């Protein structure tokens, strides 16, 4: 984490895009106070972008959603954009994705068409230096916590940046060879059963795996409402509120599941039938309304193997850029 005086210029927001927020790895340790974890919807992409510009993994970046912003830079910085694939220009020149590039004072970075995925992460060398709240710079919009004044960016905002990292990374030296999985025509997310699968009838997990869903229009950083198949719900039990987990598939009375995401409420009263594995959460974070998805059960052993593989790939990029 960079310390010391932040750059006085920062980034000026010319156009905000649909939903651009400051995010980092999330706010852990405060859920007992009702404070959500928040953080990047696609943590893999955030970490890659930070690694490419020589930031630590916990530096704050800008999460860009569906329609990206136009940003004006006032000092020389290294920038990398990872995650969803967009056409991006810097002062009219095409900028590469998944790769670090330099911006000069006065450069304007502009997002164009989106090609694949829903969220991209703009990491700037030095990181976004908004004040941390409860140990994190992640934005939780509903509670107005963290990020830039607890809200999405809007035109005219100036996002402060941390000091440029000492070891100035040569943009050409780090090639990101790790291709992040992004949604296709239909995305399959792996889940482990539970924690409340025992409250559902036998066969519900089979029904889940046979079901075909679309991410509904009422979907956001708190969770995705899934349309399409309806699942058989539990016997009409009134349940005590229980802590939630990111990736949890809640099944309310109408049988249309809700996939809990980064800004999910810390507790909830609907039973969770199955939970998306950590290694597939980044892919889940790249889904947009209208995208088709389905679920496949796997064992915890397989979930952890997948997580180890992903962690190895991310650490390979992180260690290259810090050497």
């Amino acid at each position, binding site marked *: 984490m960079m310390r010391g005086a932040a750059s006085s210029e920062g980034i000026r927001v010319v156009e905000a895009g649909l939903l651009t927020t400051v995010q980092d790895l999330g706010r852990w340790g405060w859920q007992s106070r*009702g404070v959500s974890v928040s953080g990047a919807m696609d943590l893999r992409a955030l970490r890659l972008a930070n690694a490419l510009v020589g930031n630590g993994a916990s530096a704050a970046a800008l999460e860009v959603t569906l329609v990206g912003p136009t940003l004006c830079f006032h000092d020389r910085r290294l920038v990398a954009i990872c995650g969803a694939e967009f056409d991006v220009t810097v002062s009219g020149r095409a900028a590469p994705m998944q790769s670090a590039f330099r911006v000069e004072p006065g450069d304007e970075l502009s997002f164009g068409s989106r090609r694949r995925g829903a969220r991209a992460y703009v990491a700037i060398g030095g990181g976004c230096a908004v004040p941390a709240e409860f140990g994190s710079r992640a934005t939780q919009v509903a509670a107005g916590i963290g990020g830039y004044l607890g809200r999405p960016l809007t035109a005219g905002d100036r996002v402060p940046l941390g000091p440029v990292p000492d070891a100035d990374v040569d943009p050409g030296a780090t090639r990101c060879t790790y291709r992040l999985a992004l949604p296709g025509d239909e995305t399959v997310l792996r889940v482990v059963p539970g924690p409340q699968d025992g409250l559902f009838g036998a066969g519900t997990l089979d029904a889940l795996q046979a079901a075909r869903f679309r991410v509904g229009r009422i979907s956001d950083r708190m969770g995705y409402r899934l349309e399409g198949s309806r699942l058989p719900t539990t016997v009409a039990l009134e349940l005590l509120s229980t802590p939630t987990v990111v990736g949890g598939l809640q099944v309310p009375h109408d049988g249309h599941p809700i996939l809990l995401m980064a800004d999910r409420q810390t507790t909830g009263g609907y039973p969770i039938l199955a939970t998306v594995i950590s290694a597939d959460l980044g892919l889940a974070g790249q889904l947009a309304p209208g995208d088709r998805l389905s679920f496949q059960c796997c064992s*915890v052993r397989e979930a952890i193997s997948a997580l180890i593989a992903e962690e190895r790939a991310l650490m390979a990029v992180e260690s290259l850029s810090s050497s």
Partner: protein
Amino acid sequence: MTDVPVPGPDARRPPAGSNAASWPRIVGAGDSALLVELGPPESASIDAAVNRRVVALAGALGRAGVAGVRDVVPAFHVVAVHFDPLRVAFERLVSVVHELAALTGTAEEAETEPLVVPVWYGGEAGPDLDEVARQTRLEPGEVIALHTTPTYRVFMVGFTPGFPYLGCVDERLRVPRRSQPRTKVAAGSVGLAGAQTGIYPAETPGGWQIIGRTALRLFDPRRAEPCLLNAGCLVRFRSVAFEEFEALEGA
């Protein structure tokens, strides 16, 4: 990278036929969390004794500071432990939980003074007071009397920062949630839902029946302990006139 022990296929699911009445029952929640159940999940089973064990266990887990544990979250009958599975194995956490549950199982809670919450009941502050009176066949004054008599326990904090779930409401005063939640409930609103009563710390959507409002700040990020009320705290409500509410609000 150190090798992470990979759990066997059945490590996380309690053996079939295990006695549901034997607690704690530990269930994996995804690959990075587990739930420690100390009582049944049905709303009808809300139980202060179970919750005392939950709060004690959550406290002990927090103090144990096991490397790799990211968060410990108590609720009515269950404690969630969120962890990094690449730093700590599920099996190790199960052992730690069992050890601490045995130590805290019969823990007595320290006697604390209840926090008194001054509430301006009815009128603009309590738009559902008359409806609650109608549903319970009580006078509004009796609703207030029944609400202000008990000492309540904070079972958990959740839903939104600082929102305390208090119980248990007098049986004569139990009403269901509103059929249509409000898109906006004023900050400080005091609500009823079944056996529970609660206070909305900030303006949020809400489905509870709103009978009054307090000027107390339930959640303040500038305080070292941001929540005025946490699990295990005791609370009483006191009816105040609008003038006193207004004076407190300005303070």
